[in-house]
């Protein structure tokens, strides 16, 4: 009788410990919960189409930037942003220019008061300029740098998919374009011959 109670108690203890030690979840549920943690595409959409337009007045005028880069590069780089403190920095710029020509990679602009060539990138939307130029996004927002870097890719994809097609459908040489965009400059070569603008907001007239 005593032995029976003893064995029953042991069995109950083992069962209780075992039950509380093992959890069964569907692999698909686990994967779904992992994927739910961060939606880079939604973040990028919110950034590009909501946050950025409300902050676009903070973009520096491109002719002022070029003048400062010539006369006082240190002051010019005060407008810049980046996630690290290296030589490569990003600027959010705005301006207006006349489209001189277009090819499969760029729209080439004549911007009053600027001797450097200004091109709007229309094919190769790469790098972190669009993410970092405005200074709105900070690495501290993200659980992982992977999330932040995926945001960069998603913003670039959105520019290709949603910003450029309406522009390319309408724009032609001779048109005037109002642009807000981002440029990348290296502090060791502050004023290159060509300024490449990654477009964020375009309006053709």
């Amino acid at each position, binding site marked *: 009788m005593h032995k029976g109670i003893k064995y029953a108690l042991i069995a109950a203890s083992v069962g209780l410990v075992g039950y509380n030690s093992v959890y069964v979840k569907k692999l698909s549920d686990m994967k779904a919960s992992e994927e739910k943690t961060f939606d880079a595409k939604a973040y990028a959409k919110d950034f590009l189409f909501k946050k950025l337009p409300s902050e676009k007045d903070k973009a520096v005028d491109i002719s002022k930037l070029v003048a400062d880069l010539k006369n006082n590069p240190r002051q010019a780089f005060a407008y810049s942003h980046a*996630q690290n403190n*290296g030589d490569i920095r990003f600027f959010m710029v705005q301006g207006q220019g006349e489209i001189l020509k277009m090819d499969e990679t760029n729209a080439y602009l004549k911007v009053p008061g600027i001797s450097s060539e200004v091109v709007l990138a229309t094919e190769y939307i790469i790098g972190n300029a669009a993410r970092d130029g405005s200074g709105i996004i900070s690495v501290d927002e993200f*659980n992982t*740098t992977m999330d932040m870097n995926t945001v*960069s890719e998603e913003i670039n994809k959105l520019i290709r998919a949603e910003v450029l097609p309406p522009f390319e459908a309408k724009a032609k040489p001779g048109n005037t374009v109002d642009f807000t965009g981002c440029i990348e400059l290296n502090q060791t070569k502050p004023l290159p011959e060509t300024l490449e603008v990654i477009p964020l907001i375009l309006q053709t007239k």
Partner: protein
Amino acid sequence: MKRLTAAIILLVLLAGCSASTKTNQPKRIAIVVSTLNNPWFVFLAETAAKKAKELGYDSKIFDSQNNTALESDHFENAIASGYNAILFNPTDAAGSVANVNKAKEAGVAVFCMDREVNSKDAATSQILSDSYSACIELGKLFVKSLDKKGNYVELLGIVSDNNTWNRSKGFHSVVDNYPGLKMVAQQSADFDRNKAMEVMESILQAHPDIDGVFCGNDAMAMGAYQALVAAGKAEKVKVYGFDGAEDAVNSIKEGKLTATAMQFPKTIAELAATYADEFFKGKNDFPKKLPIPVEVVTTENIDKYIAYGKKE
């Protein structure tokens, strides 16, 4: 009853003594690194230890041998032995979070070096190379050096490490825009030179006609290069690494490797030790994640660099 009261009083006194001894003890720093089988991490760990000593702290280096279980043991030992801060180079971005949290609960500050854990709150601060941005620059150079066309191979690092994917994603964010560049193989060689050589030998049998190899670190680039030399293809194939390790820097000087990305382990390790010092002195507001710039090194600018950094 009297004996019991005396025993309780003695225990209370002993506990008081132990607590007071702990607070008066000099602070100690544990340095837990993913592996000491790679000279880059040896440099990182030794630089951190040297800086800790300069700041007046005893430190000890723990080698996790790329094993998360061993890393977990090191954390438990460090906490139990009364270390006050851990300068940490994790083995696994996700798996190492539990160790960092364990230390946090025990009141031990953790400062991540170079590699990240998947949390913005667990570590006191994470000082990380900006691998993604550097690989965008390497990607641009890769496209240019291959004239936008050709077959290439990618050797990935440890797949559970975020640096592996930040480097790969940065590179692909550029290279994938060029349809003339075709990736014929992508395999992990775990950041290991010997493994990279074996993997590359086997890839070359299946894909003898390649023009470029992009590797997630210099050790793998050196291994891949050895395999290419053995196959008689080293002259034709452009090999890219990442780290700025001594043999890679020498190899670029000799025109063997095409490029690498120079990380700055000295900056990272010294900053981590300095943060620990500031933490002990009462500072609490550290950047959660601090990306450190990484610079592209080629034959054109190699004179500015030495192993693990820039010439003074």
